[in-house]
């Protein structure tokens, strides 16, 4: 019986046990809270960083299969110890620090990049009463943490004292700030629908998952979060053929590893956020009574979204920088603003009608707006007329049969 109770809600049981321990030791209430928070955040931070190992392995295997090759398969069965080997290697590489770097930005930049990704884990609700912190402005906090990430990129570019990496850092940060606008507008629509900025409240108010009410919004949010992460097809800042290596060019050893970790972890973190906001987070059959099930539902949902992200990474070619900026400023932002205006207006008109009518009307609005946006963007793309490459027939290059045509074949 005790085992069942522990298994169904392990985190709360452990928390109660620790509080009991502290009370027996005579620790005062404030210190209890402080120490509990310290233990909780240490465990959450460390497990988020350890998830990265699994993520790196899984992503390399999946990308390998998408490119018709096996992924890493030498170290351990199916190569599962590959990330461990990589980690050991990167730990013992020499830290080459170029001359004349600005010491404080250079050394702080990888730490701030990782810290900004880790901070996103603090507000995710893992079940009904298990979460890091139930901030009442969690959505704004998410957007602010994205800003901290941009700051890390700029610090890395400046600290390297290298004009190529500064250029790449500015490009990357311009990309990140441009894609925050549609993301923020879609989050605004979600807050309108659920009436609260706290992630726990947003998850609790999703009797119908938000993705059925706002498929267009979910799509915009998904595209914007991939772009803000800097993954393909938006990875212009790291394209090997273009700018050598981007803003983390002058970093070696574990500092580079930290940027790598931040990149991969951010992909998973934004899929966890997507799952919480649009797919209903920890909700599912039986998750209210057995909180550990909620944890698994969240894991499954976010893995599906992460897999779609990896799928897109392995399949699509890279965008040019002007295409990338045109997508956000000329397509995503006006579309999301239009969605905001229409949903705000229609939701007020429909405030007293039944749930079903609301859902149907929302779906219709989404599809209509998507269609209109698609048509308008098709019109706005100016296709340059292709010049004729070869306007006249070149005599020597004709692939005619030399046996039947007497003058061909040179």
């Amino acid at each position, binding site marked *: 019986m005790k085992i069942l109770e522990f298994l169904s809600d392990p985190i709360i049981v452990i928390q109660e046990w620790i509080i009991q321990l502290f009370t027996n030791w005579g620790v005062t209430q404030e210190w209890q809270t402080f120490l509990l928070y310290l233990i909780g955040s240490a465990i959450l931070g460390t497990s988020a960083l350890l998830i990265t190992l699994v993520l790196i392995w899984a992503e390399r295997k999946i990308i390998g299969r998408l490119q018709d090759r096996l992924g890493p398969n030498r170290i351990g069965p199916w190569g599962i110890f590959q990330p461990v080997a990589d980690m050991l290697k990167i730990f013992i590489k020499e830290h080459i620090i170029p001359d004349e770097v600005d010491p404080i*930005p250079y050394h702080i930049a990888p730490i701030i990049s990782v810290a900004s990704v880790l901070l996103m884990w603090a507000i995710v609700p893992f079940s009904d009463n298990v979460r890091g912190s139930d901030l*009442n402005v969690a959505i*704004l*906090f998410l957007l602010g943490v994205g800003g901290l990430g941009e*700051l890390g990129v*700029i610090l890395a570019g*400046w600290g390297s004292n290298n004009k190529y990496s500064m250029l790449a850092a500015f490009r990357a940060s311009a990309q990140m*700030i441009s894609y925050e606008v549609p993301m923020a507008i879609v989050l605004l629509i979600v807050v309108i629908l659920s009436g609260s900025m*706290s992630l726990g409240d947003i998850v609790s108010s999703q009797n119908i998952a938000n993705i059925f009410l706002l498929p267009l919004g979910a799509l915009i949010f998904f595209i914007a979060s991939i772009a803000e992460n800097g993954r393909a097809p938006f990875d212009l800042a790291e394209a090997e053929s273009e700018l050598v290596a981007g803003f983390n060019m002058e970093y070696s050893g574990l500092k580079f590893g930290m940027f790598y970790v931040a990149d991969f972890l951010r992909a998973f973190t934004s899929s966890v956020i997507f799952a919480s906001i649009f797919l209903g987070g920890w909700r599912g059959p039986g998750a209210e009574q057995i909180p550990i099930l909620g944890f698994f539902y969240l894991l499954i949902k976010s893995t599906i979204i992460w897999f779609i992200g990896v799928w897109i990474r392995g399949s699509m070619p890279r965008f040019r920088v002007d295409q990338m900026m045109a997508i956000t400023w000329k397509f995503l932002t006006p579309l999301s603003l239009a969605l905001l205006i229409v949903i705000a207006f229609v939701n007020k008109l429909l405030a007293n009608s039944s749930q079903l009518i609301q859902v149907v009307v929302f779906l219709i609005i989404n599809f209509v707006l998507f269609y209109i946006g698609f048509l308008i963007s098709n019109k706005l793309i100016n296709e340059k007329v292709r010049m004729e490459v070869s306007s006249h027939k070149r005599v020597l290059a004709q692939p005619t049969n030399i046996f039947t045509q007497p003058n061909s074949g040179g």
Partner: protein
Amino acid sequence: MTPLQIVFLLVSIVTIFSAILVVSLQKIFHAALWLIVTLMGVAILFVLLEASFFAAVQILVYIGAIAIILIFAIMLTRNIMSDEEIQSNRSWGLVLLLVLVFAVIFINQLSQSAIFNSILYPLEVQGQDNIMAFGQGLLDPAGFALPFELASLLLLAALVGGVYLAMDKKGGEAK
């Protein structure tokens, strides 16, 4: 001293110290970085006042947008690797003395006034309710609806003006 007071003291000292560094450093990029520390300190002060919405807005708008635009503007207008001017003139000692005297008189008089001896009541509404009240007040026609719309006009003026001024030399040349 309660922990709240200790945290407030620490954060205030850090904020004031980094604000002094912002105006006195020679390398302008470092001044921008210390400005970011100052803004973060102000955000923590908002948190201590239980105004969590404003703390989040401070981080989002000031650090996430204004500091970045400031750094872009620094890059645009300077030959960044060589700026070595001393930011204060020779009379900084006398000015410091005067500022300290003024501060002592000011704090003395204020601490005897009625404002600083009143009791602070903690905020009644928690959670989402104070933001909800804030939103209702902002959009109420008898409340702040007109300043709300005027704010949007102000933003429009800033947008159009900024773009118009910056578009003079667009395309490759550092202004």
